[in-house]
């Protein structure tokens, strides 16, 4: 079969509409605000080998890691029609425990699946030592329930025993059950649509174009790499600390461009740490994939082909390739951002016009849990906060927005106060926090919440010590701040902390600004 340019375009549309439609189903049917309001999930379609064919543009940090989940599900379970596999084990294809993936095989004929569909959603509670399941942990066992690849559904029926077992291990079982059902529904939608596609075009044609689309994305990614001057580029940036000690953690990349291929060597990055900011390999891969996808000017399908010209080297037991049983809750959300900063920093030497200065470089994870007396029920709130984006050669960085590896929505103030015993006392742009430069870095934001009930608060944030860098003479953005106000006492907290707070205490988060770009031109006649 030869690639027909018309069918190639038609299939591009068809595959991406399948993953998008899965996303619509998941979003519409989910229960928890984190999935519904904030859209913290991703959906994708895979070929018979678990190679990604198409992913709906939802959350970049899931990009490189979804295929590993699918491959892990394939190798661990003997899949039959009507089965679905659930997993979150970061050491078996997951990223961090709140991200639970459900994989479903698509059988056309014969006893081997011809395709897979999968979706991943961030559950704001998977048990563990603190509400919100984003703890300042030192071992994965503190972070929640670890789900190895296991059949949650067999022969079209949910395994109720397993489900009860899972729900018994979380703080908000009703919400979880609703979200799981939504994830299953999303896969059912995906299976149905793939079967319709095969019916229309034949299995052979659909499989052929699945791989043609990977070659298509590979070709364009290669073209993008070719346009970067050959050479070796190095950059090092730091994580503030791991939450248990004050030691900074280096993330370093040696990036080599040769023709249409690129190698990223992270071997000089720091060792894995006791705290929870360890990233498993799949996260590092996601960060790399994100950067090259962003450098590609065409709107190509994000699939396995994008990774083919890219080689990523890491060493086991490091901050970018952590080993069991190190704690990983924050690796997904925090370290992933620093890996992106590091790669963009290295590329800024080669293509300063194509990249931007460092963005806020953190997701400012905040989790609050307790008991709501008004409603007579426990509550868990989890949210991430936007900040400044880095400036570029063309414009200022955007303010108060999520950058790079995440793109979740906020929870509206009015929705928040309906759902939780909170009074929001400030939600604004943090003035003058972006780095100076010819183009200014974007400003961070301020979110201040007064608790109306006793609650435990966990904050996992970065860029409280090492500011987001500027580029080409631009100044760095301001570091973020975490503050607790109890009556008249105002206390600045570290980047990562856990605290038991009382009603009327206030938690205030100021997120970092982005780095500036280019020197500020001084008019000499005024000197």
């Amino acid at each position, binding site marked *: 079969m030869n690639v*027909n*340019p*018309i069918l*190639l*375009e*038609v299939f591009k*549309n068809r595959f991406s509409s399948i993953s998008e439609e899965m996303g*619509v*189903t998941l979003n*519409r*049917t*989910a*229960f928890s*605000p984190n999935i*519904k*309001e904030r*859209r913290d999930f991703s959906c994708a379609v895979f070929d018979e080998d678990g190679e990604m064919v198409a992913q709906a543009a939802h959350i*970049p940090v899931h990009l490189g890691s979804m295929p590993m989940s699918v491959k892990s599900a394939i190798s661990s379970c003997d899949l039959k029609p009507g089965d679905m596999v659930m997993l979150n084990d970061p050491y078996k294809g997951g990223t961090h425990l709140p991200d639970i993936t459900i994989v479903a095989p698509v059988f056309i004929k014969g006893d081997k699946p011809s395709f897979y569909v999968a979706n991943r959603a961030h559950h704001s509670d998977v048990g563990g030592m603190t509400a919100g399941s984003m703890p300042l942990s030192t071992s994965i066992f503190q972070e929640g329930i670890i789900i190895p690849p296991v059949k949650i559904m067999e022969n079209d029926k949910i395994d109720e025993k397993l489900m009860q077992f899972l729900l018994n291990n979380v703080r908000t079982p*009703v919400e979880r059950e*609703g979200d799981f*059902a939504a994830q299953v*529904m999303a896969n059912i*939608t995906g299976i149905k649509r793939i079967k319709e596609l095969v019916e229309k075009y034949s299995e052979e044609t659909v499989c052929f174009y699945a791989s043609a689309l990977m070659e*298509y*994305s590979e*070709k*364009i990614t290669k*073209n993008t790499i070719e346009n970067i001057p050959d050479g070796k580029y190095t950059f090092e940036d730091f994580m503030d600390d791991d939450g248990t000690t004050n030691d900074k953690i280096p993330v370093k990349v040696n990036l080599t461009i040769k023709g249409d291929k690129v190698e990223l060597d992270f071997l000089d990055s720091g060792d894995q740490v006791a705290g929870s900011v360890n990233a498993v390999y799949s996260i590092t891969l996601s960060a790399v994939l*994100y950067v090259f996808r962003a*450098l*590609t000017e*065409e709107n*190509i399908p994000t699939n396995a082909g994008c990774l083919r010209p890219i080689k990523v080297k890491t060493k086991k037991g490091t901050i970018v390739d952590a080993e069991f049983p190190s704690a990983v809750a924050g690796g997904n959300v925090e370290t992933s951002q620093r890996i992106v900063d590091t790669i*963009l920093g290295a590329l800024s030497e080669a293509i300063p016009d194509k990249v*931007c200065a460092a963005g806020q470089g953190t997701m400012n994870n905040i989790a609050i849990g307790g008991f709501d007396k008004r409603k007579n029920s426990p509550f868990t709130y989890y949210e991430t*906060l*936007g900040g400044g*984006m*880095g400036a*570029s050669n*063309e*414009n200022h960085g*955007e303010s*108060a*927005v*999520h*950058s790079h590896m995440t793109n*979740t*929505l*906020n929870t*509206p103030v*009015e*929705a928040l*106060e*309906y759902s939780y015993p909170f009074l929001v*006392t*400030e*939600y*604004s742009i943090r003035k003058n926090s972006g780095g100076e430069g010819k183009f200014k870095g974007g400003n961070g*934001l301020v979110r201040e919440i007064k608790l109306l009930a006793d609650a435990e608060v966990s904050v996992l944030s970065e860029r409280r010590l090492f500011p987001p860098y500027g580029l080409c003479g631009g100044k760095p953005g301001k570091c973020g701040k975490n503050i607790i106000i109890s009556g008249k006492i105002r206390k600045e907290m570290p980047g990562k902390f856990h605290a038991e707070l009382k009603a009327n205490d206030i938690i205030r988060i100021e997120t970092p600004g982005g780095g500036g770009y280019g020197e500020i031109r001084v008019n000499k006649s005024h000197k």
Partner: protein
Amino acid sequence: MEIVGVDTGGTFTDFIYKSGKRWGVFKHLSTPENPAEAVLSGLKKVLQDEKFQIVHGSTVATNAILERKGANTALITNKKFEDIFEIGRQNRSELYNLKYRRENMLVPATLRFGLNCRINVDGEEIEPFDEQEARSIIAKLKQAEVESVAVCFLFSYLNPSHEIQMAKLLSEAEIPFSLSHKVLSEFREYERTSTTVVNAYVSPKMKRYITYITNNIEGNELRIMQSNGGSISADTAMEESVRTILSGPAGGAVGAYEIAKKAGFDKIITFDMGGTSTDVALLDGGLPLTMESTISNFPVKVPMIDIHTVGAGGGSIAYIDKGGSLKVGPESAGADPGPICYGKGNDITVTDANLFLGRLVPENFLGGNMKLNTNKLKKSFEEMAKEIKMGPNDVAEGILAVANTAMERAIRVISVERGHNPQEFALFSFGGAGGMHAVSLARLLKIPKVIIPMNPGILSAIGMLMADLIKDYSLTVMLKNESISRDEIDNRFVPIQEKAYDEMALEGFNKEDVIIDRYLDMRYQGQSYEILVPYKGDFVDEFHKLHEQNYGYCNKNKSVEVVNIRLRARGVPEKPVFEKIQKGTEKPESKVCLGSQNVVFDGETHRTSLYDRNKLKSGNVIEGAAIILEYSSTIVLPPYSKAEVDDYGNLIIDTEGGDNER
């Protein structure tokens, strides 16, 4: 009755009128600098001594936003929440853009003012309105020569007292304003703020525009089309201009609904293909509403007819991308330079592909007023064909296939993704280019019937004449479990209903002539999306049913919430009646046939007859392959399809109904 519908479009302003028994239709070139010129010059042709009722769909509000030419607008909100309008939902609309910037704000940071005052989630005042500070803000507004002010305080829909106090001061200072609890009495502060700002931003301009027109048509009555599918008095439109945004497509949907109903179809998917984009909507026995519209990425949460738009139309440009894939759009050749066949362009467009395959008749475009140029086409298609090693005809058919795929996807979004099976619907096609694609598109979706009305090019203007006068009201009530009872809900509706009767009286409708429809926005507790449920009978059961239909499941054991209550007040104005056309035989008279030409379908050339639509009579049947020509559109019947003319002149096409079995 004397009545005229006027629809302002990008290129043409369309007029349809009825004076005595006489119907008339014409187009004037639009005058984008001052749209009122085209409107008034057209009206001058129509208006006579008798009093006319004019219904007008205007693009003034829409364009004020798109071109950022609205009023110098300020925003007053709670202190420390001034930036909510800029922060939005904290996400970015382009995931992979390292240089991403938001759309330009309608209110700059310097004109966003915070005031000390706060209402809490229970509607209680926990910090009083600071009048002194409010006065100092007003002084700053004067200094900045602010023309319009949006006022939006947290939880104002539960307790509007602070917004009302602010309004009093603004009235004293004679500064026009929009209050959030009046514009949109619903929770979620960003969406409410955005809707209120949009209203404040466009209202002054709309007021000037409407005043100018009314001053020039004295003695006649002017109504303005809204995006909810209803019209409203000119006075109300000046106050609630946000409700007129995107009203043109709404007119089309109303027209399609009324004409289809008359033709015996109550389940239709509308398909309006224009030069740069295509609008689709799903009508399941009524006009579909959405509360989730945006303009320029700003949410506008007033009810609008749920119309989905894709960037593919007749002018969409086809090209081969770096990866060897054939792409169509979203770039469009527009009207200038236009498609290659218009004479100036160099890029192949969808229209060129249609012409190249013989699906357009070059001598007959726009009734022969514009001759299409076929000379350059062959060379262009041969070049592209060589590039991808295919035949020129295959390239042209491929371009149509890719364009149809984009439109098919749009229809899937509004049907399959929302739990509807498109095969149960008829495709109602209008707009200039729709008739060439409708049957092929219907086949992709296995839709059995296509309807093409008379004058498909001016359907929006027709729809405006068919529209009811409509006012929509809503209020967030957030009722849970035990508080959900008919008594409680009825009580909540009482003040809204009284307000509706009062306001409808001002629109000229007595209480007994007002039709009230009541709805609830419901969800399962913990969800954050609401479903619109008619408030009648067992509404909780109806909610479960609709949830099942939309999302594939329901859970009758789970508690539900009533988030918002909605009320729609309708008045039915006198509407024109369509008359039946002359009856004919199954076989059209020979004078209807204008000749024949070669047309390519699925790689084969078919000798295809050309028919003149204006001479068709009811009962006439035409089998594909055929082309039916009229002033504003060309209708292509591929082989194996069959069209029948109904009593009102609509073409009802059976997509697989030709005699020759496949």
